[in-house]
């Protein structure tokens, strides 16, 4: 980005008479001082280099760039300061200003209000817990409620302004200047520490009478790991115990449906730990259609400027209904698309359901295929689409298909089995190509991967030319993984073995060890006693025993373990 910015600044400089560009450049440079500094450097360089004829060309490019940047800056500013946009978004314009306008349930609002009232009364120190956890789904009006209540009570809301996170690349860029990398979590922790110890800094209130203050923590930092979560928990726990200022912590729920999501789970965990340490909790229910309707009904005069004056609030609601897809009383869904589970997808591929009947067969106009290559049309989406919906890595897909596909073959169809396994081999080769590459070839990597997955899936679909009528099959977890693990274990075992066993000059290679020495050791067993020294013998025996035991045990165990539940946690 900084590069592009520099070009734009150059244009505004060269063209004094276009105020439009100028204003944009200024708005852009304001929020990002760093960009401006790099921009100025770029300007200098460009001045030196640009000559007559090139200038016009540059100018053209810049005009084009301006268009691009117009969009860019706008969105940027919207995300940031919201200063330069003449018309406010309706979301901001029609923000609730009084308690009645809130779409949150009255009772809840009342509850929160009384809680704050009690704590803002001068008789302090009675309440041990000064923290309120407000949870609810995104967009129910948690922060709006807090703001409105605060203004109702005449209190000031002080909050933690989420700092712009330092992106890793940015840090790398800065790393020369010896600034230390601080994550959002670090900053948050230090902030809470400050609040706990010193309260809010009094200089910020210039008035003679100290206004009551509500402290608001919106947007808890993200936790990626157990350690970070623990740290945040500790920090909040301390806050709950020691803070003197009424504090509201807003926690966004992500619906209970997908508890698999790590973030959602950790948020849950946080909430529980906060409650345990004594914070009050209020949950805002999801917004219902009625409350949306109510909102539009309450503010009919505010909506009157719509271009379609005949539209009733009800119709409006209908309209607002559509894009967010909300059913009566059901929560709004955000940010998740519908996914097919891996096993669903695998089932589709393995069962290989196809249209029956001759009519469907010769659809493809004019494209003649030999009979052995033609297949009935699939009774499913395009395989690649299913793959992408199931969000799996191609490697595991191939493994799963490989493990299970033979169960789905006709008993006579060895030929099919060969075609299948050949295609699986192809996809394996494609995936193996990746191995040598470094991560710099990201694009190529993803194309190769999806090609490999596609080949595996389509190979399975194509190869299974006479799919047997569907019956129930459990999908097994690839045994290959188990095998790989065990063989690497044995390898290490052998590795340790080979050091005492051939303490002679040479070291033997693994294959020699595996194919010649180990079987011999087994045959020699314990009768070799005198033949070579005790250490060798001991370890050889150990290995022998271990070898057999682990083999038997692990294989049996695996056989029993195979169940659908087990598959889930791979």
């Amino acid at each position: 980005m900084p590069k592009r910015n520099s070009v734009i600044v150059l244009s505004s400089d060269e063209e004094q008479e276009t105020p439009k560009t100028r204003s944009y450049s200024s708005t852009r440079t304001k929020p990002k001082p760093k960009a401006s500094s790099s921009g100025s450097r770029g300007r200098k360089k460009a001045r030196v280099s640009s000559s007559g004829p090139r200038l016009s060309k540059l100018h053209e490019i810049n005009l084009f760039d301006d268009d691009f940047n117009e969009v860019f800056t706008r969105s940027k500013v919207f995300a940031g300061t919201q200063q330069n946009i003449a018309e406010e978004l309706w979301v901001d314009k029609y923000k609730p200003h009084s308690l009645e306008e809130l779409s949150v349930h009255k009772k809840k609002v009342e509850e929160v209000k009384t809680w704050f009232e009690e704590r803002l009364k001068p008789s302090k120190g009675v309440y041990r817990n000064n923290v309120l956890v407000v949870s609810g789904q995104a967009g129910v009006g948690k922060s709006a409620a807090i703001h409105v209540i605060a203004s109702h009570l005449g209190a000031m809301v002080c909050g933690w302004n989420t700092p712009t996170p330092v992106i890793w690349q940015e840090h790398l860029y800065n790393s020369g200047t010896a600034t230390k990398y601080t994550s959002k979590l670090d900053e948050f922790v230090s902030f809470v520490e400050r609040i706990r110890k010193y309260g809010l800094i009094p200089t910020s209130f210039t008035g003679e009478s100290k206004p009551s203050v509500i402290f608001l923590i919106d947007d808890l930092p993200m936790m990626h790991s157990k350690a970070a979560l623990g740290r945040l928990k500790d920090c909040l726990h301390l806050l709950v115990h020691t803070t003197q200022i009424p504090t509201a912590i807003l926690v966004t729920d992500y619906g209970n449906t997908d508890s698999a999501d790590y973030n959602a789970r950790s948020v849950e965990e946080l909430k529980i730990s906060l409650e345990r340490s004594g914070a009050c909790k209020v949950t805002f229910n999801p917004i219902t259609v009625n409350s949306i309707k109510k909102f539009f009904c309450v503010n009919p005069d505010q909506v009157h400027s719509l271009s379609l004056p005949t539209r009733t609030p009800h119709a409006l609601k209908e309209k607002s209904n559509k894009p967010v897809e909300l059913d009566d009383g059901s929560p709004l869904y955000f940010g998740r698309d519908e996914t097919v589970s891996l096993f669903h997808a695998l089932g589709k591929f393995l069962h290989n359901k196809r249209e029956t009947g001759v009519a469907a067969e010769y659809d493809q106009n004019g494209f003649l295929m030999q009979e052995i290559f033609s297949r009935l049309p699939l009774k499913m989406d395009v395989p690649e689409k299913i793959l992408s919906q199931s969000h799996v890595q191609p490697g595991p897909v191939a493994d799963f298909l490989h493990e299970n596909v033979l169960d789905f073959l006709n008993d006579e169809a060895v030929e099919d089995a060969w075609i299948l396994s050949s295609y699986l081999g192809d996809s394996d080769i494609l995936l193996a190509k990746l191995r040598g590459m470094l991560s710099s070839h990201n694009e190529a990597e993803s194309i190769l991967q999806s090609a490999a997955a596609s080949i595996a899936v389509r190979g399975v679909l194509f190869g299974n030319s006479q799919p047997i009528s569907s019956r129930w099959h459990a999908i097994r977890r690839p045994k290959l993984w188990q095998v790989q693990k065990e063989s690497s274990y044995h390898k290490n075992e052998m590795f340790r073995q080979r050091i005492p066993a051939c303490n002679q000059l040479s070291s033997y290679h693994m294959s020699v060890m595996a194919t010649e020495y180990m079987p011999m050791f087994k045959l020699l067993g314990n009768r070799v006693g005198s033949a070579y020294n005790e250490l060798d013998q001991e370890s050889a025996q150990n290995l022998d025993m271990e070898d057999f035991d682990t083999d038997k045990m692990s294989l049996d165990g695996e056989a029993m373990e195979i169940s659908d539940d087990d598959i889930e946690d791979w």
Partner: protein
Amino acid sequence: MLWVDKYRPKTLDHVMVHNDIAQNLKKLVTEHDCPHLLFYGPSGAGKKTLIMALLRQMFGPGAEKVKVENRAWKVDAGSRSIDLELTTLSSANHIEMTPSDAGFQDRYIVQEIIKEMAKNRPIDTKGKKGFKVLVLNDVDKLSREAQHSLRRTMEKYSAYCRLILCCNSSSRVTEAIRSRCLNVRINAPSQEQIVEVLQFIGKKEGLQLPPNFAARIAEKSNRNLRRAILSFETCRVQQYPFTDKQTISPMDWEEYISEIASDIMKEQSPKRLFQVRGKLYELLINCIPPEIILKRLLYELLRKLDAELKHEICHWAAYYEHRMRLGQKAIFHIEAFVAKFMSVYKSFLIATFG
């Protein structure tokens, strides 16, 4: 100590099997003009033995004082650093290692170790700068990149170190490396030579070894001297006064593979293929290299196969062996071969017997 190690010739003069090569190597060393060497030949032919004897010839008995080390390297590769671990066997004058154990990061190993060796050159008693010897095993298993970097380092540091490369097949070593080395082919010992060695060991151990029995061991060993000596020792443990008819127990994994082969011959169906897969997994768990599994399986199948199919089956075996090397999951390819075999064999059966 196993007989294999006990009766390994320690010096070039004592070498029994490849005496001519040993004498040539000796001449090279005495003339102080040792080039890089590339030893290649089948397993159990005596490559390692010759290399060890050669090292002893170069550096004296000191070369036998080796220590096993598990060494870790931190390699800087552009933006990231890679941690590598490898076991090395080293004396004051040489280092032996198998860089292909490091998988696809083998090239870093090759570069790093050679650079490191170049940094600390040993100085001999006369103050003359000597050189170290780096023994690399399984060069044919090195990746192409690693071989290229090996070539470069070889040229750059040839003043500081000598390379002794060791591999089974020189065809997988790039031309560039082969042309920079003195190639030494160590062929598999003939059965007579193996018998000779066995008789020698028998005499040293004070055993009565019937010549027929020795010949049988030699035949069973597939011209692999190491194997012959190992099975000789097992036979000795199992039953001493040797008889001509004494059973020579084969390797368990080989028996297992022949079992698989007969499974395949008996029935050709996806279900059977699945069972075969289970057995192949068993072999892989025990670290039998997939190439060897495939090779042995082909051998077993060919023994039972009709002559007119042999050619086709060999072709497919080669095809899948190649693909196995390209790929990562050997089982996919071995299984594909088995499936192909089943399909070919089944249609053959149907065609002949209806």
